[in-house]
């Protein structure tokens, strides 16, 4: 820890003030309000609120529609994470030996990260369009099945998973490549001299050494797909067809903003808060040193 060096009574407070004000007004106060509202119910006319205790939570936990959104969220998050981190690992595995032009490859896969998931969603929407898209057309030669995301829930889910993983794969690759640079080339060369082939080198040396990066990326991808996924759902499927892509963050918005069921929406927010706290705690266990102060 650094020895504090400047002596001044008011200045440090002035310096942290803007950040603290923004934090209090836009983060703490609303979070506290969500927590409070989750114990209340608003009358149908919105003129009165009354305390209902844990009723909002009880209702949610017995609501099959809510369960479906929880299951959908997990399917979505695990799908995005498996696909995104898996693809990142695959590229990392290829890059374990010295190859020329690695930086160029990195550039070539990194840019989708700049594309907002909803915009990427529109592109994928068309690529998968049942009547005009190129992918259903190609697939029709392989299998006799109608990949129609307008009608089939799992196709819609696959579509949003693929879109989200696509925007994130470059991020994962960048982290894996940074992790690879930290592995001494001499270790890999030694293994090579000992006759370990590329596959063996990857599983015996690279993969174990990359496991902290992998763990970190799994957690970050889970957080991202749990909480950053609103846009793609809103823009592409609107939770449909038939609620098949109705995920938790979308339902909070739908019930609160469209349905004006404030109590239930707040209760859902609180449940999400617990999820994000758990995931963040997991993330920082891994980098604990950087936040202990």
């Amino acid at each position, binding site marked *: 820890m650094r020895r504090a060096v400047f002596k001044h009574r008011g200045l440090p407070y002035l310096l942290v003030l803007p950040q603290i004000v*923004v934090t209090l007004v836009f983060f703490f106060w609303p979070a506290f309000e*969500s927590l409070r509202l989750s114990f209340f119910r608003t009358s149908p006319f919105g003129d009165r609120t009354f305390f209902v205790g844990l009723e909002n939570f009880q209702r949610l936990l017995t609501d099959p529609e809510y369960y479906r959104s929880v299951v959908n969220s997990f399917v979505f998050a695990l799908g995005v994470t498996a696909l995104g981190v898996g693809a990142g690992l695959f590229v990392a595995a290829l890059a374990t*030996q010295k190859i020329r032009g690695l930086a160029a490859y990195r550039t070539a896969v*990194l840019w989708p990260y700049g*594309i907002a998931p909803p915009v990427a969603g529109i592109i994928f929407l068309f690529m998968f*369009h049942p009547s005009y898209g190129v992918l259903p057309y190609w697939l029709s030669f392989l299998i006799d099945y109608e990949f129609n995301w307008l009608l089939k829930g799992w196709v819609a889910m696959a579509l949003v998973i693929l879109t989200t993983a696509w925007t994130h794969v470059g991020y994962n690759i960048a982290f894996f490549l940074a992790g690879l640079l930290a592995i001494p080339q001499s270790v890999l060369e030694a293994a090579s001299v000992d006759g370990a082939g590329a596959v063996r080198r990857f599983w015996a040396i690279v993969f174990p050494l990359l496991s902290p990066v992998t763990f970190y990326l799994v957690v970050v991808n889970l957080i991202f797909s749990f909480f950053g996924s609103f846009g793609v759902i809103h823009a592409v499927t609107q939770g449909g067809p038939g609620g098949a892509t109705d995920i938790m963050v979308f339902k909070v918005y739908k019930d609160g903003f469209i349905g004006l069921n404030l109590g239930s929406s707040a209760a859902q927010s609180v449940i999400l808060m617990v999820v*994000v706290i758990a995931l963040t705690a997991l993330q920082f266990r891994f980098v604990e040193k950087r936040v202990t102060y």
Partner: protein
Amino acid sequence: MAGSTIAASDRVAALPRAVEARRPRPFPWETVVVHVLLLACVAVIAFPLYYALIISTQTVQEVVARPPILTPSGHALENYGQAWTRAHMGRLLWNSAVVAVVSAVGKIVISMLSAFAVVYFNFRGRQVAFWMIFVTLMLPVEVRIMSTYEVIGNLGWLNTYAGLTVPLMASATATFLFRQFYLTVPNELCEAAQLDGVGPLRFLVSFLLPLSWANIAALFVVLFTFGWNQYLWPLMITNTEAMRVVVIGLQDLIPRTGTHVPEWNVMMAAAMMALLPPVAVILAMQRWFVKGLIETEK
């Protein structure tokens, strides 16, 4: 004489080895396979954008043709013009640019100041301030949708640039990054500055700031992209055409099945315009972008 004989025989003995050394190395199959696989990955990843790009140059007839046409056509100008006027692109792009730049710069300034306070001062409540900033990581917009909307409403900030940008300005990750960086600045620099009678603010501006440019650039790319691609926030607090950002305004052009002419070419032209700025910033500032990603998210 004897010596030279030995040398000659040595040379003869060495001959096969020399020949062996000169023999071409076995063909590097492994490397070729790796390059082919990597190129395949790049092709798969790049395909959606390529597809969107060529669609944006075609006429509707070409767009709906079966089999799909995968080569560019010559109608880019009219499609992009259509998209520009129909979606009010100029306004949308301007709004997005304001949100992205103002929120990124605001975050950087605010984070720099608070990290400076936390590292260079010993004040009561320092721990509390630090943890308050840290906890914001656990409160994404998604978990406080309704009540944040209410706060913005009470402030009268709905449909304003203030409402679009100020609430995005608290950033734990940026604060951590600056704190981390300040901790690596040698203490001697600060001591020397103090001996010369340099006050804290001048130290920040004339000593720390010039050292921080690489970090600032890295953060800027990441935060600009983040701001440009905001979705839920602007969706909630703006409902007028004039205040919409491009990521949301784009939706109007999606031809919904059945009722619309399938003008996906215009849609794709608009999508290209919406995604170009952040992608261009990432590509232009690639080195900083990677640095920013790796360092902020840890």
